[in-house]
């Protein structure tokens, strides 16, 4: 196969960009009461956390509130952070909880992530076309960002959130299962569903010959 090498379990992107070497030192300083250190951590992760809460809640005001509450909660509970996971992973879990609370409130409790969802009979899609020139080259960065958030927003929350944690935030399958109170097989089947559905919907924009 000539496709680019991809290994979602060992991302090359995240560690270099997100987990900077000074993270443990900053966390340690913040724990010891260094406000500046905590603010540095917030500034480092606010964009990613806001994208996360937006993708989950699909509501700007809820996303802002959930992000704010997540950072405040993280600050209050810094003492509980043991350092046996990455700080970012710990922060993501707090933010997911805050965002899910908002989503459930707005949807009158109809969103239950752990209930059985019909993941359907998986069949190999047939109407396939090559994606030709690389979408990253074809669209401007902001335009591409709009397409990506629109398409993920169309997914059912049960699938959207699993994809968000596994493939965007790069949590492991086990971490995702734990954060959402799901079994590992449930995470795996929802993730595949989400990936295939996103692929299908992105096809509209990225297939060779699609009008931009």
């Amino acid at each position: 196969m000539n496709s680019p090498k991809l290994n979602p379990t060992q991302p090359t992107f995240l560690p270099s960009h997100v987990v900077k070497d000074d993270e443990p030192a900053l966390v340690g300083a913040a724990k010891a009461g260094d406000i500046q250190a905590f603010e540095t951590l917030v500034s480092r992760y606010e964009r990613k956390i806001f994208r996360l809460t937006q993708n989950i809640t699909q509501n700007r005001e809820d996303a802002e509130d959930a992000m704010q509450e997540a950072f405040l909660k993280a600050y209050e509970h810094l003492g509980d952070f043991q350092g046996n996971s990455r700080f970012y992973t710990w922060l993501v879990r707090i933010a997911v909880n805050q965002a899910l609370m908002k989503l459930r409130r707005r949807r009158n409790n109809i969103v239950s992530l752990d209930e059985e969802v019909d993941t359907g009979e998986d069949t190999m899609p047939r109407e396939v076309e090559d994606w030709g020139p690389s979408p990253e080259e074809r669209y401007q960065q902001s335009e591409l960002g709009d397409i990506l958030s629109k398409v993920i927003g169309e997914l059912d929350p049960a699938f959207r959130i699993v994809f968000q944690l596994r493939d965007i935030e790069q949590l492991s399958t086990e971490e995702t299962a734990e954060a959402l109170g799901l079994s590992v097989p449930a995470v795996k089947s929802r993730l595949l569903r989400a990936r295939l559905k996103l692929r299908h919907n992105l096809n509209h924009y990225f297939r060779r010959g699609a009008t931009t």
Partner: protein
Amino acid sequence: MKCKDIVKELADYLDEDLDSSLRASIEEHLGKCKDCRLVVDTTKQTIQIYCNSEPAPLPAETRVKLHDALAKRLHHQV
């Protein structure tokens, strides 16, 4: 291996969580079957595009709101 077997193993294949013989038979099928190959390639691209996408900067007023709230909490405790 048939097309319908590929989709069964696709989740683990994408996560590189398969033993080498199963992986080899999937790749053998992908070498022969253009439809499956395109699905696998564009699904990988989907994951890659999302994984590599940079989050947009916070809208200015959102950032002000956040940092005001933090400053209030952080600087006002004894």
